[in-house]
């Protein structure tokens, strides 16, 4: 029986930058697959290329060579308009610094991807409420980000990432700005979200113990290359 189509397939992917005469190989000939429904942790020290790799999967950046295929769609071959649609409909992103818009309330922040996806106004309120209930913030809809704790802001960011019902959740150091207890609660939440059928999660982190506890598989990066790729011990 053939293997089902993986959620993510990276084929000899490289991302090089030039700075003057020097070529920086942020990602250098990396290939691996992430099956649908898996929780993958990308580990590595600073400058190892893990965030660059995540940006390539998110369609925020394009590889110098190789291909990124997500749910059968080769991101290196689509137009910028299709790439924007991919980010809107297929991917949800969570950042280390939350990246909520400070002048908007929680409700408005979570509604933003629905506006970009041109979802009908009549459907939006229910979708926002559903996303906020899922992360336990349904009582804080009218608050601005500055009125929330770090953990709550990250939950709100997760709600915003989920509101368009993506198949892929990409998290870049989601616990980096949180204390260990809060970080653990966020990872618990991500693990619950992963239980949704077909939801694939790729998380960049440098906290190996947490990754080992929550992820299905660990991919370790170093100097732009994939050093190891396997299940946690």
């Amino acid at each position, binding site marked *: 029986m053939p293997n089902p189509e993986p959620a993510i397939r990276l084929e000899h992917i490289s991302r090089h930058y030039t700075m003057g005469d020097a070529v920086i190989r942020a990602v250098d000939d990396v290939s691996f697959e992430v099956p649908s429904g898996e929780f993958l942790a990308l580990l590595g020290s600073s400058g190892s290329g893990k965030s660059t790799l995540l*940006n390539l999967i*998110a369609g*925020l*950046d394009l590889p110098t060579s190789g291909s990124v295929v997500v749910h059968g769609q080769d991101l290196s071959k689509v137009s*910028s*308009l299709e790439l*924007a*649609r991919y*980010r*809107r*409909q297929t991917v949800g*992103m969570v*950042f280390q610094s939350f*990246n909520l*818009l400070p*002048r*908007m309330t929680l409700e408005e922040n979570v509604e*933003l*991807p629905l*506006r*970009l*996806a*041109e979802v009908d106004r009549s459907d939006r309120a229910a979708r926002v409420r559903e996303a906020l209930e899922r992360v336990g913030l349904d009582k804080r809809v009218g608050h601005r980000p500055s009125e929330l704790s770090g953990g709550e802001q990250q939950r709100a960011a997760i709600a*915003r990432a989920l509101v*368009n019902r993506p198949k892929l959740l990409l998290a870049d150091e989601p616990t980096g700005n949180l204390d260990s207890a809060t970080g653990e609660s966020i990872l618990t939440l991500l693990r619950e979200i992963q239980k949704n059928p077909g939801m694939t999660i790729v998380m960049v982190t440098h906290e190996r113990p947490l990754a080992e506890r929550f992820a299905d598989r660990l991919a370790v990066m170093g100097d732009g290359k994939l050093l190891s790729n396997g299940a946690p011990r």
Partner: protein
Amino acid sequence: MKPRDLGDLALRNLREAVLRNSLTTLGVAVGVASLVAMLSLGVGLQQLAAKRLSQSGLFDSVFVTSRMNLRGMGRNATPSPADKPPRLLDEDARQEISRLPNVVEVYPQVRFFSEVRYDGKPFATMVAGMPESSKSSGSFDGMQGSFFSGPAAYETILQSEFAKELNPQTSTLIGKELVLRYAERQSIPPNPADSSAAASSSSSSSSESLPGGFSVVPKEMRLRIIGVVDTEPAAGFGGYGNGRLLIPLQVAMILHAAQINDLRDIVRGTSSAPTFASLTVRAKGPAYVEALEASIKDMGFGAFSLLDASKSLRIFFSVFDLLLGIFGSLALAVATLGIINTLVMAILERRREIGILKALGAADGDVKQLFFVEAGVMGLLGGILGAFLGWLIGRALTFGTNVYLHRQNLPGVDISSVPWWLVLGAITFAIIVSLAAGLYPASRAARLNPVEALRYE
């Protein structure tokens, strides 16, 4: 993104930096105000000039003469094949012309030389008959006294220059009487003896009998002065001279005063029926004058209008408006730089936000449209405020000018005018200019690399 969401986000962004955006909008408003004020002056002065000229009745009128008047007066006496045969300008012709489309009225030019006696002194002047319709032409607006009490009233309105000759204190003339001395034309029936003598001594034309002539008898009548007018409601044209003593046309006609064409008619022996020296045909507006003039020429009459002069006036004011518009636009050009500056600053400040929007799925076009809408809103608000400020400046200039004119004992004028098309045009122009100013910042924002933008602190 849907237009409503785009508008919501743009307004929210504008509210965020309310002081800076207000100042930029004010800059646009000042630019639009200067443009509107300049053009309102151009339009106002044009309207003022056009009003003064239309009060003279010259621009919506065609002056009709018999083509016979011109034969043998240095013109080619041989008619071209296309020419209709010359016709007499008589009552039949008048009726026929009055039935042409877009004709308001047709009345004869009755002008004759006279001697006026006032306070025992003689004054020579030209008398003109004024139709009843001239009352509403605007020519008599602001006159001292009043218009004729009736179409057959034995009353006169004096042109102010002539009135000053009678008495420098023109207002004291009103209610006084003057004596008008003129030459009355009295018809003489044909003399059979003259006809037979002509027949025996002449050749081929002997079969035509000569019509009767007329004698000229001095007459005088008394007229009551009821008004003095500054304008020239009976301005001269075609060599007939300015009418400076105005009387009702009906009165002028029943006087049977000898006119310039009488001697010509009697020599030519064209007809025994009275003819008119010329007719004035008033069209519904200056736009109909050209076609009307052509129709009248087709009928076999000489026709003349001041259409070309009117066109020259319009060309002059178009160039004048263009120059004023260019000067007025300079301030708007400066305001454009303000918009560019504000939006470029906004890109720097909102770099991270642009990155977030792109990460959430905003296309380059969404980001571009957002900045475009922000520029457009500043243009719209600046345009509305600017049009109002421009109107205020125009009113202030009119007020200041009128204060100055009143000090010089001159009547006030309205030198600025802000018609609705100027308001709409200025607002539209402000929006277009603002959008053009937003072009560079918007495309710069759209091109931002989302990864770099997200890293920006």
